[in-house]
């Protein structure tokens, strides 16, 4: 597809998601309390977006990923949080 065709097909959907993202950040900021590791990682991952480079989706995913390579001693939970809390 040409760039204009991509924009035609996806602009409104992406626009809505961008506004949803902004509203989410507003909602978090209005709520009393402080960020946890997920929001810290989220705000860090957002810094990947303004970079004028390819593979932004991959960069955001890598930013949210556990970068370590050794297996955990044991699984203490079954679910994932969506962001790596850092070394414990």
């Amino acid at each position, binding site marked *: 597809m040409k760039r204009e065709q991509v924009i035609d097909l996806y602009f409104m959907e992406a626009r809505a998601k961008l506004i949803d993202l902004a509203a989410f950040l507003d909602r978090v900021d209005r709520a009393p309390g402080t960020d946890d590791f997920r929001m810290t990682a989220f705000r860090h991952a957002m810094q990947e977006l303004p970079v004028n480079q390819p593979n932004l989706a991959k960069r955001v995913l890598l930013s949210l990923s556990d970068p370590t390579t050794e297996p955990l001693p044991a699984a203490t939970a079954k679910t*994932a949080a969506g962001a790596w809390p850092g070394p414990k």
Partner: protein
Amino acid sequence: MRYIEPHAHMVSRTTDDYLAMATAGCLAVCEPAFWAGFDRSSVDGFYDYFRQLTDYEPKRAAKFGLAHYCWLCLNPKESEDIKLAEEVLGIIPEFLNRPSVLGIGEIGLNKNSRNELAVFEKHVDLAARHGQLILIHTPHLEDKLKGTRLIIDALKADGRVAPERVIIDHVEEHTIQLVLDAGFWAGMTLYPESKCTAARAADMIEMYSSERLWMNSACDWGVSVPLAVPRAALEMRLRGHTAKAVDAMIYGNPIRFLSQSKNFRSCS
């Protein structure tokens, strides 16, 4: 349109889902063994689950004209209990010759623990000894990258594993290249919130070689869409992919991989 649903947990779905899938052009559905949402308390629970997958569910699917196949294993979420895992591994061979069993899966990792990795390697050994295909689950969200690397390293360390007989599922933009470069097949799971949207799947089809790719809904008891594959096919068509290219992705590719199992019968 015709398609194969290569990964769906139909025991968690309704007959309405079977009807909708068949109406949309689904010809066969493949069901990996997975976690029930709670830990099973004994090997007997798995025995009954394997009976459900190999006996009852094919009959339920057949009422809607769908072929039903399955994969067998203990899910990585239940792999911390090594003793239970070994008991479950012990009963799987009894089911491998049933006519709808495609191989061992979906094995893999969940939180990337040592016991999960040990049980994963035991499953790979079982598959190698019995000449079975392997379907692999990669972990969720922040654990996916590390888990995918550990899985690939473990597979490469076992000289009996033929990469073309292994599909590593739930790839995203940060793991797809690792999987394809190592010679394995890669699965893209179409979920509304996690994993991969139809648009992102189409992106990856356009960015990487689609020779060893498939798409699946992985519909189960959670937030998931049984018609995700035909919807992704529509996404491809809207982006200008030819009908032939769409057919290759949602029908031809699954057929090519699954036909490596002696139990998979061509469907058209």
